[in-house]
């Protein structure tokens, strides 16, 4: 079997009961840390988070997960139960908006560089063009085009094991970047372009210059 072929037999599936039997119930502390609002620790975390992952899904439950990033605090906390996430050019947010129109469930994972724990916030979202919200997201004289308003249902800090094991903040981990293909190489191969990957890289880099 060559390395590019698809497996014929899938790994076996186990039931939720079997899962529970193996990992046990979440302990009381994990359950207790979930809150139905953003406390002052969560707000401080969001104010310093330049990055998040946002999950939505469509009416059939088909999922999508997308990265969002900007200066720390780019997600605005409107009150302890409401946040607003800006939409900027190039985010290709259309999938998220289409999903939200069908299914308003939304999950966020906020990341602060150097911190091993992440903040998880789940709730319901909808798009807005409210001028007072978009004005707070202005950068270099440009407003955000739209924003997602999220009503918070639960918020909790997720333990740091994943980030510890992944050595995500260890500068030495960045050596991994040299082992994966450049975006220029990926573009040339996936789009079957008759082009030098280095030239494709230059075009993509030039495109990155316009961030807002």
């Amino acid at each position, binding site marked *: 079997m060559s390395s590019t072929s698809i497996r014929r037999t899938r790994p076996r599936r186990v039931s939720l009961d079997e899962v529970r039997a193996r990992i046990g119930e979440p302990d009381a502390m994990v359950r207790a840390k979930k809150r139905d609002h953003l406390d002052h620790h969560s*707000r*401080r975390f969001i*104010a*310093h988070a*330049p990055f998040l992952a946002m999950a939505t899904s469509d009416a059939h439950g088909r999922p999508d997960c997308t990265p969002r990033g900007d*200066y*720390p*605090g*780019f997600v605005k906390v409107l009150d302890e139960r409401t946040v607003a996430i800006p939409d900027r050019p190039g985010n290709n947010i259309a999938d998220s908006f289409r999903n939200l129109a069908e299914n308003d469930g939304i999950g966020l994972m906020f990341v602060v560089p150097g911190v091993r724990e992440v903040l998880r916030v789940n709730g319901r979202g909808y798009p807005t063009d409210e001028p*007072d919200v978009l*004005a*707070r*997201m*202005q*950068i*270099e*004289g440009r407003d955000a085009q739209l924003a997602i308003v999220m009503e918070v249902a639960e918020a909790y800090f997720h333990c740091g094991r994943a980030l510890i094991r992944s050595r995500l903040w260890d500068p030495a981990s960045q050596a991994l970047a040299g082992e994966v293909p450049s975006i220029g190489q990926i573009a040339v191969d996936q789009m079957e372009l008759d082009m030098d990957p280095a030239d494709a890289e230059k075009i993509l880099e030039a495109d990155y*210059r*316009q961030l807002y």
Partner: protein
Amino acid sequence: MQRTVLERIEPVADGVVSLVLRGAAGPLAPWEPGAHIDLALPNWLTRQYSLCGDPADRDGYRVAVRHDRLSRGGSEYVHRFLRTGRPLDVSLPRNHFPLRPAPEYLFLAGGIGITPILPMLAAATAAGSTATLVYAGRSATTMPFADDLRARYGDRVTVHPTGERGRPDLGALAAALGPRALVYCCGPAPMLDAAAAAFPSPRLHLERFRPAARTFAANRPFQVRCVRSGQDVDVGAEESLLNALQHAGHQIPSGCREGVCGSCEIAVVDGEPEHRDDIGAPPGRMYSCVSRARSSRLAVDL
């Protein structure tokens, strides 16, 4: 940049805090009344604040910050998240609002626009000039330093809560002004516009905290030659000169990125700049964050 430590943060009116930044390595750079600094916040944003303390105090800078309801992340951060003891970098002071010598001054301040006026009023009074201040704000509780000003200057200061008394009558103030008086005004846009209508422009000095609303011709691409490095840099229609130069590898400081603070000033050697800033660039200079080119090429001293 100068390294400071936030020594004190305290409320001085509803929605306004005062910050004292102490020099981390001895005395800070000197400044004149009207000067402002860029404050680099921990959330990567840089904001400009007028110095409102005493220029003779070289150990620390004082600024005051109003929590803007529509904060883009600067004043909200200062109010909610900044803590004493935090090291903070500040720029060297810059002054686009210097106090010119005159025998008589009328100072007009609106809300947080009082900050540059405080050291100006002190300097004018110390120089023996006749100096009066009309200080407007929504209500007395939202106006920082009003009690100190009344205690120190008595009836030369008029505190004018617009919620009770409406806007000050600038026409009457203009009529009462001596022939050699200068007018200094800092406040929200409607106050600046009213001042520009009431006082003859050679006597009036204004400072804005946000860019004036203006429209410009559509952006066109242009090329800039950096004469010292010999580099040609293309500036796309949707790109700022500052961004293009930074991407080309030039270390240009930047602050507001909207033509107000002046930190991204560069020298123009050839070509005709299209100035879009609110500062008023001196001859041979331009602010690269907003200004562009009327000619297809510019040459700059980089």
